[in-house]
């Protein structure tokens, strides 16, 4: 075995194109080229602008929960661009005259990376990032309970994503879809490094996510402000808690399944092989034992976002708080009892299928209750259609349609006729695009000022909403139709001419979604350019209701000058009703914040290099990195000087500064909410009078 393991010349992204020039290899070479050039461009930009040092001191080594959250969201945004481009290429492939311009293998890599990226490197970082930014501010905490572990989680996720990106440049990704069922992904049928890319990138991000779950749960249990009992907690914190518990328990089965798959592939074990006593059905069980709770890991935080966006922009208290809490808890518990519905077609008894079908539909009850609660929150309100609110309303309408098809699929007999078809593909996109992406978009538009101090541009935000919304319907409604006609998923090309008109509409829809994404990029760009006029230094730009809006925007590193006492569910609303515009500390004391450290970044990067070694069977590299990680953690364990102090004087100065801003900011009416008059502290003049 060579020192480079199984790495070959052909694994370098442009070599196959020169050996075998075709549109398919050309696209692969171009994609690899974009990654390489993109990375080079970033390096050049950082060097020319002299941004290396600030990047290192303010971002890479940071332990501040808000900055960590922002990095997560930036990661998700980059990966979202790749995921959507892949989707557009796949839509184009299917409308091109058969057999299209992609080889079957290349198409398979695309749907596999698309699924893997969208779930693990878009959805997860989005929600973990948003939780990081917002949750501590909502419960009155200064940071996560374990800030260093938080950094490790972050950089492990980045490492996992980097591996998926690397697969464009070096070697191939796997081709068995994001679920990677053996025996197809066994060493016999899939001998190249693709499956190992899948295994190790998910292992890195999976460990990161489990640690995030622990961090969130402990933070919520231990760091709530005094007086904030569980039933006074904001709903987003509740959904975070439930998501965290799901993360802690549900990521493990995925890790177990992928370790077993790795042992099968490289050590000749027989967990999932068909011969010698392996059982591939065990993989399906383990995978979905993770996979189904995962669905609710993705959706619950978005439910939390809607529970804040809707009351704020309805100018009204959240309807049915208790009901929403119990619905959230019910969903979290039930999510562990339904995994078999992902494989009704695996030959188990009808009774077992029926039980899991019924359990699946039972989740419909708390989910339906939530949608009605949000609707009743809007009822008797005064609705303002900000971008965040539009995404929330769009979510409710679209999600219900997905719910209908979801309950249909919960019937095993219907599942027999729709499994592995484009109907199923349409269904889960129908759940996850509104239920996850719209929620995160709403949350980002809503809470953006907390992290950056300025609002996002509303015009481009609304454009992006309409493009996403229209794009979604155009893309996926046709897929429902041809799915019912019997079109299987993961098909590189279709020969039935009856599908073509539907596929064309779907292609147009994909372009609209791409337009939505482009609008969002423009939105961020325009907002950064106009940040001076979009600044809301006084905080609370939407007449908000939660504790997080009692802080100035951007929120200072220490979050709270003093930790407030909580006596109700909407403390900030009550404070405002009493005429308060700023929290008044009674005394200032020194506080401690975690010091920056590069260790989290280093440990995760070494882990990533080690994982790369394992992917290409460079076992020596894997072992070396394992030892290096161990040494790094050991060094860190001797470091006891991990806190810095913010003195009472600094806090006082900061408070005085903020108070001055608040006092000199004119009161803004709701009418001017989306105009440049909004410098923070918007409130309802009509209500005040």
């Amino acid at each position, binding site marked *: 075995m060579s020192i480079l393991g199984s790495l070959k010349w052909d694994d370098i992204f442009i070599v196959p194109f020169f050996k075998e020039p075709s549109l398919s290899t050309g696209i692969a070479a171009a994609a690899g080229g974009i990654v390489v050039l993109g990375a080079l461009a970033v390096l050049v930009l950082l060097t020319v602008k002299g941004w290396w040092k600030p990047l290192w001191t303010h971002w890479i080594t940071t332990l501040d929960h808000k900055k960590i959250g922002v990095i997560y969201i930036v990661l998700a945004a980059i990966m979202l661009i790749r995921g959507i481009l892949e989707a557009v290429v796949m839509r184009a492939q299917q409308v091109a005259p058969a057999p299209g*311009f992609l080889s079957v293998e290349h198409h*398979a890599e695309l749907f596999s990376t698309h699924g893997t990226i969208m779930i693990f490197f878009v959805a997860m970082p989005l929600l973990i990032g948003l939780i990081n930014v917002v949750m501590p501010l909502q419960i009155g905490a200064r940071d996560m309970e374990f800030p260093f572990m938080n950094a490790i989680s972050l950089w492990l996720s980045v490492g996992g994503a980097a591996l998926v990106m690397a697969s464009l440049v070096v070697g191939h990704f796997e081709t068995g879809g994001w679920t990677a069922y053996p*025996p197809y992904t066994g060493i016999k049928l899939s001998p190249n490094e693709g499956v190992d890319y899948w295994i190790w990138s998910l292992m890195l991000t999976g460990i990161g996510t489990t640690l995030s779950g622990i961090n969130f749960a402990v933070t919520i249990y231990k760091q709530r402000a005094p007086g904030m009992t569980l039933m006074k907690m904001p709903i987003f914190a509740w959904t975070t808690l439930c998501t965290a518990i799901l993360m802690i328990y549900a990521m493990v089965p995925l890790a177990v399944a992928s370790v077993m798959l790795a042992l099968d592939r490289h050590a000749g074990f027989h967990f999932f092989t068909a011969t010698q006593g392996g059982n591939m059905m065990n993989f399906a069980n383990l995978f979905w034992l993770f996979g189904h709770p995962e669905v609710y890991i993705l959706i619950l935080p978005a439910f939390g976002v809607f529970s804040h966006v809707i009351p704020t922009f309805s100018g009204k208290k959240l*309807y049915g708080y208790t*009901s929403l809490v119990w619905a959230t808890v019910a969903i979290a518990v039930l999510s562990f009892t339904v995994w078999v519905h992902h494989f009704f077609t695996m030959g188990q008894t009808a009774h077992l299928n029926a039980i899991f079908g019924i359990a699946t539909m039972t989740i419909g009850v708390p989910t339906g209750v939530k949608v009605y609660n949000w609707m009743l929150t*809007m009822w008797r*309100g005064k609705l303002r259609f900000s971008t965040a609110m539009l995404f929330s309303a769009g979510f409710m309408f679209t999600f219900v349609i997905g719910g209908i098809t979801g309950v*249909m699929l919960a019937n095993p007999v219907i599942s027999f*006729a729709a499994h592995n078809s484009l109907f199923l593909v349409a269904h889960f996109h129908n759940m996850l695009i509104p239920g996850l992406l719209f929620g995160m978009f709403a949350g980002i538009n809503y809470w953006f000022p907390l992290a950056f101090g300025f609002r996002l541009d509303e015009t481009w935000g609304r454009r992006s909403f309409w493009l996403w919304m229209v794009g979604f319907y155009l893309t996926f409604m046709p897929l429902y139709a041809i799915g019912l006609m019997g079109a299987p998923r993961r098909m590189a090309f279709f020969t039935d001419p009856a599908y073509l008109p539907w596929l064309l509409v779907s292609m147009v829809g994909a372009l609209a979604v791409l337009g939505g994404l482009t609008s969002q990029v423009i939105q961020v760009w325009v907002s950064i350019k106009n940040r001076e006029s979009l600044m809301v230094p006084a905080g609370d730009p939407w007449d908000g209701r939660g504790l997080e809006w009692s802080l100035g925007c951007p929120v200072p590193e220490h979050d709270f000058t003093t930790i407030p006492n909580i006596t109700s569910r909407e403390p900030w609303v009550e404070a405002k009703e009493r005429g308060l515009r700023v929290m008044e500390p009674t005394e200032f004391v020194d506080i401690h914040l975690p010091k920056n450290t590069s260790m989290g970044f280093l440990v995760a990067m070494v882990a990533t290099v080690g994982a790369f070694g394992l992917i290409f069977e460079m076992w020596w590299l894997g072992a070396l990195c394992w030892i290096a990680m161990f040494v790094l953690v050991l060094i860190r364990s001797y470091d006891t000087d991990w806190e810095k102090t913010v003195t009472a004087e600094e806090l006082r100065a900061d408070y005085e500064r903020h108070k001055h801003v608040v006092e000199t900011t004119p009161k803004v009416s709701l009418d001017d909410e989306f105009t440049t008059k909004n410098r923070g502290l918007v409130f309802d003049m009509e209500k005040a009078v």
Partner: protein
Amino acid sequence: MSPLGPIAAAEKSHMIVFFLWMLPVCLPILIGLPWILIKYRRKGGTGAYHPEWSHSTLAEAVIWGGSSVAVVILGVLVWMNTISEDPYKHTGANPIKVQVVGSEWKWMFIYPGKMASVNKVVLPENTPVEFDITATGAMQSFWIPRLAGQIYAMPGMQTKMNMTTGELAQLEGFNSQFNGAAFPLDKFEVDVVTKAQYDAFLQEPRKPWADLLTQFKKVATWDGPQIFDAPPKGWWDKASMNPDLANEGGAAILPDAAPEQKKIDDAIRNELHISQNQSQGDAQ
């Protein structure tokens, strides 16, 4: 969906029934939401503003109760449907037994003691059939959409799919679970014929069983449907326990330049009736 057999027809009717049952729960949202968005909009809306209103026991009871009732009804339906359309249950007395082996990228059908065929299954009209299904290589999903739903074909495992054929028809069955380079070609003909034609089919001249096995073992596509002698008694059961009997192994995903990949590309072109010299743009 245009079902031919009773099982496929039942699947279609369940879909419609479930869709309709979901409407009472979902229509209030689909209609009510736009209505609320219009009526309670801040500028120009006519709805009264009650910022503190946040609870109604009646509404809670209706929401929780209503959706629970819907789920109870649907749950009963799920139970009944699942039991009555159990793919393991015979759809009539004395079904025709066909043993199936799925592989990369072809399907073997065995009429025990009579005949074996690849990529083609011939069935008499309006007759109950039981497919006994296994696979070699990757996991696949056996599906003839116009007759019945699908079930996984897995190496080392046996699954069953019962159905009743409908009227005379030429149908297509396929694998719906992605399994590599020639996945789009992984399909088979299903001929539903008269009883007389079916009996005649079983008498047709065929090639020896050994020929089938040699070719079938390779991870490769298959040229056109062909018929062979039946395997020795009990072969299918053995093969379902030991998939290596019908599979030599090999990669299911290949570099673009690999000779096997060239063959697959040719097979795809052939399937699409594209001459090798023609550009891809002239397809069909």
